[in-house]
């Protein structure tokens, strides 16, 4: 009896910690469903960045991120998800743009801005950094030249914590 009660106490104490990411499902460029709340990168950092084919600063940010992506991956194992908020005006252009520009990110299509709304993004570009437990640890709106360096410092902070 006592044991049962003790067990109860402990199960009660076991509070589960959950991901900050919303329960929204988007399609990737191959048409596969991806549930954002279930994104994982084996405990390594994840970057989610919102963009659109018609957003000049976003293209600049993506080009800059793409230039350093390989190095970042080698050093920290970070994975970048690039969420396109293009609607049916330009969804057909997303894949040719991504491939044509040679970007290496995992690209997701937020055709009706479901994730944009759920993550409270007002204007692209807007970038989130998520740690290995699914917590949003840093976010940034807009793009200035070299802003990726600041993002990388934040990535290094959580990548180091891991070790």
């Amino acid at each position: 009896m006592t044991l049962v009660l003790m067990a109860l106490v402990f199960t009660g104490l076991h509070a589960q910690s959950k991901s900050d990411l919303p329960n929204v499902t988007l399609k990737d460029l191959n048409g596969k469903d991806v549930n954002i709340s279930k994104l994982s990168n084996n405990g390594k950092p994840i970057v989610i960045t919102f963009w659109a084919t018609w957003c000049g600063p976003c293209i600049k940010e993506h080009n800059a991120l793409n230039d350093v992506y390989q190095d970042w991956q080698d050093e920290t194992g970070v994975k970048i998800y690039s969420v396109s908020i293009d609607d049916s005006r330009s969804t057909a252009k997303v894949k040719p743009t991504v491939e044509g520009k040679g970007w290496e990110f995992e690209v997701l299509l937020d055709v009706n801005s479901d994730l944009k709304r759920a993550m409270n993004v007002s204007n692209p570009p807007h970038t989130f950094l998520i740690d290995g437990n699914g917590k949003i640890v840093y976010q940034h709106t807009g793009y200035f030249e070299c802003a990726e360096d600041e993002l990388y410092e934040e990535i290094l902070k959580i990548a180091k914590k891991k070790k």
Partner: protein
Amino acid sequence: MRKHILVLLALALTTSFKAGAQSLLESSQVSGSFQTDAQYYMLDEGIGITDLNGKKLGINGFGKVNYANGNFSAGIRFEAFLPEMNGFRKELNGVGLANFFATYDNGFIGMTVGDIYDQFGSGLVFRSYEEWSLGMDNALRGARVVLRPAKGVTLKGVYGRQRYFWAPYLERNFATDDYRGIVRGVDAEWDLNQSVTALNDSKFKMSIGGSFVSKKQVNQSMFYNIPENVGAAAARINLGYGNFAFSTEYAYKINDPSAINNFIYKEGQALMASLSYSQKGFGAVLQVKRIDNMSFKSMYTGKQNDLDINFIPPINYTHTHSLPSMYTYSTQPNGEMAAQLQVNYTIPKGTALGGKYGTKLTFNMSQVNDIVRDSVKYGNAMALNESGTLGYTSKFFAISDHRFFRDINFEIDKKINKDWHVTAQYINLYYDIETIEGHAGSPVVKANIGFLDVTYKINKKQSLRLELQGLWENEVHKGYEVEESEKKDFQKRGDWAFALLEYSITPHWSFSIADKWNYGNPVEEYRDHYFTGTITYIHEATRVMLSAGRQSEGVVCVGGVCRTVPASSGVSLTVSTSF
């Protein structure tokens, strides 16, 4: 012993309650965002602002809070337009709770009550969405059910009434012309690759879908017999094989006389298709579309974009620089034939032309023409697009000589070395301003546009950006003769020059000055300078932007963010944050 048990029981209950509450708190996420755009208006005779109409200040603001806990989420959005900024609809003036929703979704079934944003296929028969920066919101207040009975199968049903600025949803006021109907819709989609195991990782991709949407409206017209139920249906298919992708959607709508289509009783049709090929370093996409009488609103007297149930996407290239975006095409729901081709290519790194970083090229061409309309028999006579008749007949593949729009552009994007980056674009534009903006009798805009965007990195923290743009009209310029009575139609016409210099200190500050000069306007008094200075401060997800000067109509991109602005003179402030 008993005492012990009681103590333990009490302990167990309190801890599990406490832990329960704690775990509820820990698993709950509260997030949200705020934005305020304010503008202080000043008289500026130089650009023709001689009367502020009693309005010195415009403030648009919103605040939203989302709550999520596992499968449950809910949110509210509060909006204030006190009063609305110039360029936004007067009906927005007001303050209140504009949007709320609650959703439960466990993967098998999802239910939402409140304000719903969703779309079926590409939106040809149903799309509800909001675009804050344009003051546009046609959310459907009602209920939605989403069912996923098997892998790859999604069924959706929506029911409700659309947002119409601040008009109440339940007690519509017919005296103020609020005849909004009820919108009902169902959609089914089947993705073969997710539902058939053998096709899971196949190179061949296929999904199909279909939807049916209807509106139930009240006939308040004294002249026309307005149908109380109007239905529209659509079917779509997406196919892919390796690097190729093809998708198409066809929509049909029964007769739906409205203020937009001049109260004709013709059915509507829409067809969109796209074919693309992409591989690393190369992407090409061809899109075509045909629209015939496809305006679909939940109120037959609706104007502009009010109460649109569907969304007819313009497929042309969206320009974001100041001068190229001056003449932006908007869809003609009564009829258009459009085609668009875009090619993206990256000249590989390490080649003579690619250099160290590769060179990115983009080519785009789009054109839109009218459909061909033939008159129909009405009584003993022939009539073309006359109210109360069947309107017209139209051959499906016939293209009218009346061209609305054409844009041919070529862009080169090159990182020269660690410090220098250049983007340049040339655009050849044809823009039928009479049709698109409703300026009767205005000559077509035929223009060459070019821009050069150069970024120089001073060091790891500081950079300079220079933008030079020019727009040259082929026919309308300094020497063009304008009659006194037509003058007004020539605002913003003729040749333009634009220059912007931005200095930014990563990650927080940006300072910029810009001048836009209509130096080649045929009307001398319109040859104005639009000078602006802007300071932007960004800290993580917070942005504060202060600018002063004159703004002409168009899209402005400063501090890494773009938004549309109306013509004005004064000081404006934007504060936005999200958490």
